[in-house]
């Protein structure tokens, strides 16, 4: 019974949304690739960021490099913000 209800709810939700485009299975791969970050779009995301100040300081001291600290006000810069 729960499965039947779920199927009916899904059918209703899918039908009752004029304007929301359908997702043809044959277009799935193209859409998936297109919505993902595009090559070269955000080079800063390709950096191998650390997420620990202590770890970064220790590594910087060992390797003789400066630390670059990137912060965001509401969340991690590596997520959405």
């Amino acid at each position, binding site marked *: 019974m*729960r*499965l039947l209800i*779920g*199927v009916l*709810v*899904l059918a209703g*939700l*899918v039908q009752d*949304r004029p*304007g*929301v*485009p*359908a*997702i043809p*299975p044959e*277009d*799935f791969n193209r*859409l*998936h690739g*297109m*919505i*993902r*970050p*595009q090559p070269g*779009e*955000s080079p*800063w995301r390709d*950096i*191998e*960021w*650390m*997420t*620990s*100040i*202590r770890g*970064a*300081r*220790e*590594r*910087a*001291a060992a*390797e*003789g*490099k*400066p*630390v*670059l*600290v*990137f*912060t*965001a*006000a*509401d*969340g*991690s*810069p*590596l*997520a*959405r*913000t």
Partner: protein
Amino acid sequence: MEHFIPVALDTYFRGAGDEVEFCQQIKAGGNHMAVATAGGKVLGHGDALRMREKELAKALEEFRALPEEERKPRIEVPANVAPPRRALPAPPANGLILKGHCAYLQADPAGTIARAKAWYYRDNPDRWPVETQSDMLWLTEAEWTSLLPADPKKGDRAEVALPIQRRFFSTIGIDYMEGSVNALVPRETALSLTVETVSPESLTLRLDGAAKLGKEFDETAKVGKNTRGSDVRVLGYVGVDRARRTITRFDVVGLGLAWGNKMEYLHREIRLDSEPWLYGIAVELVTTRRPIDVVPPYNMLHYGSGLKYFQN
């Protein structure tokens, strides 16, 4: 970036006492970038630093002019260092990590969906193009294993557990292109898995779903506060290695219509010509566990709209 040690932090989760102290010393916090020696000497332009090659080059030049003891200082952590005020959550043990992406879309006259170009502060001379946003979704071991049918037969269909549906749609099923936006409380959700192919070694499940989220659309959405909402439908494919009982693929596409202004702000950072507008989401499985792979989901820590991330 090979000449630097890059570290990215959520300002509210900067770590233990020594780490917070270091951040305060170099003024690392808020929407900001700072370069410093491991010992805490600020380099470059300080408050005005941006990640542009010429500025980083200057900071690097300053660094290289320093004596070795400043370039390779001894780092000591006090024995009585204060623990983090807020501990950064770790993914659930043996859990599943998914990465979601969000982009604005448009349909051409023939109905073909393509990316839409949009701008932050488009009326500002210093405007810049929006970038794909990304976020994470965590499932516990019990949750992701609940997606695997015990005795799969082609055509078998099962609903995804409601807590997973709600978490998926309310956090990474929404339009989060403006970044710091709250999860949208689901009004209706439906999500199911159907067995598409099955063999002794592997299993492919098709994911179908839809949701109505946040506030319902009406014409006042453009000028009202806290009026965000969306309608979204999703299609996905989940691959399973039956012998290892592991998920090997979790690809999802979502197309949705979104509207409204976030929270108390009336003027969106990204203004779009149509309302509602078309957005898309794409989800994929994360198979590595680098520091950047285990960044917590945004709405787990911020603007969760009162929705508990892991519900019973």
